[in-house]
Structures are given as C-alpha cells and as structure tokens.
C-alpha cells in the first residue's frame, strides 16, 4: 500500500496543493516531519541559536504550507528549493533584525544575559567529556575553538600558528575520533 511516507517530496507538496486547508493533514504532517529538521539545521548553522532555529522552522513551514495551499508554489517538484529559498530569506531578515538590536544594545548598554540553548545535552555529556579528554592537546584545542569559540579554520590556524589546511585535517580527524569514542564500548558509561 502506498502511504505518504513512501511519497517523494514533490508528491507530498502536490497533495497539499491539491486540497483545501485541513483536507491533506497526513501529507502536511509528513512534509513537516521531513523538512523541519532540515530547516532547523539551516537555522542553527546560520543563526547559531537553538531557539531562533526553532522559530525559523515554525515560520518557514507555515509559509510553505500556506503557499502550497494557495497554489503559489510554481513547481511543486522543486519544493526543497522553495523551502530553502524561504529559509534563506527569513534568515536574512532575522540577521538584519539582530544587527539592529545589537546596535540598539550598544547604544543603550543593555546588559547581556546568557542562557544555554535548549538542545545542549542531547549527547551523553559524561561520555563526551571522557572522549574529549582522550584527544591529543592540539586536536582538542582545534575542536573546542571550532565548536565552542565558533572560529573558522583560518582563525584557528592563526591562533595556533598552523595552516588552514592543517587545521581542517586535524578537525576532521578529531571529530571522527570523538564520534568513534562516543559509540565505543571501551569508554563505558
């Protein structure tokens, strides 16, 4: 039996577009289930904020479904490109808004409050701490500068007196080691 789970992205978009509001619940749900993680990651990559990324998911998916229902998506087979386009446009708007907020903050010296992102502890933190401690110093510094300090390979290279290419190699190798360690029985609970 053919279900929405077996449908292509284009078929799902077509099903949403062909029916009125509320008549294509299963297709809308599957479209959301499929695209929400992609939009969230896009938001996280560009905004570096879990809450902002989750807000982006809501806004992008709402607009996508509305446009589909209104017959305003020209090529439903290219729905992925459409969702990416909406995401890009909304992130650009968000960045512009953040820039204005930052300028206001600088002008009026509103103190910063630091709140840890909601999704912080998705991995086993104790195990990750042990795995991180197993890395060589240089590798550990590179991954922390990348993921915590959000430095590019060029920035890290300047900070550690290395080359951009070398930092990329170290980073890739260190991430591989961390992932292997996170699933290794040897490290234990």
């Amino acid at each position: 039996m053919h279900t929405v789970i077996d449908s292509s992205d284009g078929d799902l978009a077509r099903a949403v577009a062909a029916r009125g509001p509320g008549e294509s619940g299963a297709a809308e749900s599957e479209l959301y289930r499929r695209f929400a993680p992609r939009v969230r990651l896009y938001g996280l990559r560009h905004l570096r904020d879990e809450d902002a990324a989750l807000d982006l998911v809501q806004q992008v998916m709402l607009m996508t479904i509305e446009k589909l229902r209104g017959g305003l998506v020209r090529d439903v087979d290219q729905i992925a490109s459409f969702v990416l386009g909406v995401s890009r446009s909304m992130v650009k708007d968000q960045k512009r808004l953040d820039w204005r907020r930052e300028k206001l903050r600088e002008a009026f010296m509103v103190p910063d409050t630091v709140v840890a992102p909601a999704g912080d502890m998705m991995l086993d933190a104790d195990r990750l701490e042990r795995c991180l401690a197993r890395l060589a110093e240089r590798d550990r510094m590179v991954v922390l500068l990348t993921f915590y300090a959000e430095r590019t390979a060029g920035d890290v290279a300047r900070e550690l007196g290395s080359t951009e290419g070398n930092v990329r190699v170290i980073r890739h190798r260190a991430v591989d080691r961390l992932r292997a360690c996170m699933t290794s029985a040897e490290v234990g609970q």
Partner: protein
Amino acid sequence: MMQRCQTPIADAILLDYWARDLPDGSDLDRVEEHLFACGDCTARLDGIAALGTGLAALVRQGRVSGIVSRAMLNRMQRDGVHVRMYSLAPGETVPCAVFPGDDLIVAALRADFSSVDAVALSVTGSEGSPFRQYDNVPIPGPNDELFWATPAAVVREMPSMRLQLTLSSTGAAQEELGRYVLEHSAP
C-alpha cells in the same frame, strides 16, 4: 519513494559547512540545495551539530581539562563560567584552593615562549608520581603565558598535595622553560 542518498556529501565537506569554512558562493549553495533535498545527509549533519552543541555545553559548564587559549578563557568568562586563576612565574610556589561557585581552576604559567612553537607540560604529584602529561601543545603567536585548566569538580575531589609543573620546549632541543609549584589545599 524515499531513497537512500546516492551522492552523499563527504563528511569533511559537511564539517566545513558547519564550521563556516565553505565560502559563500556555488559550493555553499550546492551543499544547501542538497541538504534540503536529502534526509540522509541532513541526519549526518545533525550528528555533527549535536556533537558541536554538546562540546560547547561542556565548556560552558567548565568541564574542560588541559591547555586552553587566552581567547577561549575570555569567551568562557563572558559566557558566565566562573574561572579561578593562579598566576605563576618560573620558580614560584603558589598556594591554591577551590572555592564554592568555582567552575574552572586555571594555572597561568609564565615563560619565555619567543623561540618555541610547541611545548610539553609535565605535572607530577608527591614524590614525582605522574599526574598529567601534555605533549606537543601549540603556542599561539606572541604569548608569555600558558593556561592549564582543570574542572573545579575534579579539583574538589583532590587531597591536599604539592603539584610540580615543568614546561619544556618540544623538538630536538627540549629545553626547560620553567618549573612551578602549586600547593593545593583540599576544601
């Protein structure tokens, strides 16, 4: 029909993408177009993102051991990590302790790093018993301090003890750059 990805993006490219090392332009556009059309590669990117989020969370809790850069320390303090720092010149003995509210204990070791690219830090306990060893630690740019960090939670479990720290350059010369002593008092 949902199918497995036939043209998966290489892990190295996904990592570059996440670390903002793909320049704006065709490569970045191509990766994002692919990710929005591909659940498999999205899931792999999610694995990298989760690892990054987990690492950042550890640092924000002060759960980081080893050598950290000045820029990292500044950022941690800005993020609310409570850092207690002890500054040591070569030959100096400094009493140290951990206090309630501390997240991270840092020893700032001063030395002349002008002619070295990398160093080794050896930490020994009473009667020379090995405590920690860090090899091939890069020395970033013009710098006169090396920061050795230990989570406060770890230090709280340590008995009172004398720690001897020895910094030496790596490579053929292996010249000693400084010896320092921390007199740790257990809480």
